[in-house]
């Protein structure tokens, strides 16, 4: 692992943590989604620095490309206005965020303590290219690929069933 990739890991990790923290505290959904895109791109850089170039590309294409665009379409369809921002600010104010943050911080401290105490040996950065991943994916993990395809098929059917407007009730909403 070169010096450049090493520093890229640290910089991208810090950017990912900051932008994720910004994403979960925004009151406007579009702002949160834009911070989420930054976070996902930074995680893509982290993957590249870890020696997983295929996943870096997939992170950008599928997560930042497809999934966030799906969120953006939904935000556009909902057409949330100023009162949504007001109610969001009202929900976030007050003491409602203290408990979750304390609980998550305690859990995170425990996880970090356990990881540091276990002292996992070795470093990351061994390059594993798309060739090895593809050979393993369509070799020992073939059943997983089939199950993932069935999961995605079920998701498509479920989304189209839930998303269509119910007959007889059209015009009631939207």
């Amino acid at each position, binding site marked *: 692992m070169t010096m450049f990739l090493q520093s890229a890991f640290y910089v991208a990790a810090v950017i990912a943590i900051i932008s994720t923290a910004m994403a979960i505290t925004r009151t406007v959904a579009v702002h949160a989604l834009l911070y989420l895109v930054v976070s996902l791109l930074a995680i893509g850089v982290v993957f590249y620095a870890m020696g997983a170039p295929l996943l870096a590309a997939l992170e950008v294409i599928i997560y930042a490309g497809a999934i966030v665009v799906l969120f953006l379409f939904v935000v556009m369809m909902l057409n949330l206005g100023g009162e949504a921002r007001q109610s969001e600010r009202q929900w976030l104010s007050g003491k409602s965020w203290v408990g979750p943050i304390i609980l998550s911080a305690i859990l995170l401290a425990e996880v970090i303590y356990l990881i540091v105490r276990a002292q996992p040996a070795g470093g*990351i950065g061994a390059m594993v290219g798309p060739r090895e991943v593809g050979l393993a994916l369509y070799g020992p993990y073939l059943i997983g690929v089939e199950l993932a395809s069935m999961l995605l098929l079920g998701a498509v059917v479920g989304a189209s069933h839930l998303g269509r407007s119910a007959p007889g009730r059209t015009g009631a909403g939207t």
Partner: protein
Amino acid sequence: MTEVPLAYGLILGGILFALGLAGLLMRRNLLFILISIEIMLNGAGVAFVAAGSRWGQPDGQIMFLFILAAAAAEVSVGLALLLRFYRQRHTLDANRANEMRG
């Protein structure tokens, strides 16, 4: 040798997961809850890839591919449910979801 220790990759995954968990617990907007779930899945994926990279094996990356497929399926169904909920209730407040019938 100058390498990033494995512990740092695992800790990054843990931090992302904890941030997603905090967001999941403190938001009431269903859209932000779905965003937080995406962040949590990403954190788990970072830990998988870091552990796979430490051994130089592709298994960690394959686990992330499966996480990717699960995230895509989850977000499509979740957003369809969210749209339907918004059509019925004209709000995204998760507290109003306790009286959902059909």
